[in-house]
């Protein structure tokens, strides 16, 4: 059975086949899980992204346990408080390394050579992660969460979204925090990783006087 990925002869119309060919062309498995990289990735700066992902995995894992036992559990149980600590510190790790990754990618101008979408998805992940963290801090059901809610309402009300997105409504904030926002962040992180793998890591910046076509600050 041929893989069909390079055959030019017309195929009978099959959406499934068309989708498979599209995926095989855009993201072959060899690109999704490559076993080699250009030698210039030998720098610790390249590690920030994967550490952020590891942090994110811990955020989700600890979050699932917290959700399993309900929002009051961590106030009442020593184990619960420990899992809450895991959640807090993994959130800190996630943000620290996401920002370090942002600094690294900025100074490498990682958006070059057709990688603008990857950069933009990354910024959106950052923004939505902030909203996710915000709903989390507000869902603590303690003094910190209470104070955050009382103040944040002024921002949401000024923006005209205060009755739709009522920060004083615990049920709403908690639901957003454990369902919608992790799903959004997770989906976007997956898309971001796929984009990185599709394009491969960007080449080093070339000095302008020996500019190659691939070195144009093209945003295509």
């Amino acid at each position, binding site marked *: 059975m041929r893989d069909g990925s390079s055959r030019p002869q017309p195929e009978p119309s099959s959406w499934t086949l068309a989708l498979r060919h599209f995926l095989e062309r855009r993201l072959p498995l060899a690109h999704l899980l490559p076993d*080699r990289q250009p030698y210039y990735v030998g720098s*610790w700066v390249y590690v920030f992204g994967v550490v952020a992902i590891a942090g994110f995995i811990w955020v989700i894992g600890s979050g699932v346990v917290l959700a399993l036992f309900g929002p009051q559990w961590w106030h009442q149980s020593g184990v619960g408080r420990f899992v809450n600590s895991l959640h807090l510190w993994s959130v800190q790790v996630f943000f620290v390394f996401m920002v370090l990754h942002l600094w690294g990618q900025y100074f490498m101008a990682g958006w070059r050579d057709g990688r603008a979408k990857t950069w933009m998805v990354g910024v959106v992940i950052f923004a939505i992660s902030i909203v996710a963290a915000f709903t989390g801090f507000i869902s603590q059901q303690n003094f910190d969460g209470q104070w955050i809610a009382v103040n944040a309402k002024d921002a949401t009300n000024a923006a005209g979204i205060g009755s739709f997105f009522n920060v004083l409504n615990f049920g709403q904030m908690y639901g957003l925090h454990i369902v919608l926002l992790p799903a959004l962040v997770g989906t976007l992180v997956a898309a971001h990783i796929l984009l990185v793998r599709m394009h491969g890591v960007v080449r080093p910046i070339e000095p302008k006087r020996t500019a190659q076509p691939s070195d144009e600050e093209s945003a295509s």
Partner: protein
Amino acid sequence: MDSPATYVNWNFILISIPNLLMIAGMVAVFVIALLAPFPGHGESAEPVAVPVDRNDA
């Protein structure tokens, strides 16, 4: 850990010691990452392949 943190005040900047340590730590990690050698892939590493552009010649 539950007593209020110490704060540093400079001009209009008011920051807690824990937050200051976080930010300083991040900058330090970034600088170290820039400078520290990365293991296992020095010049002596055997190249697996050098890609060839099949559309050339």
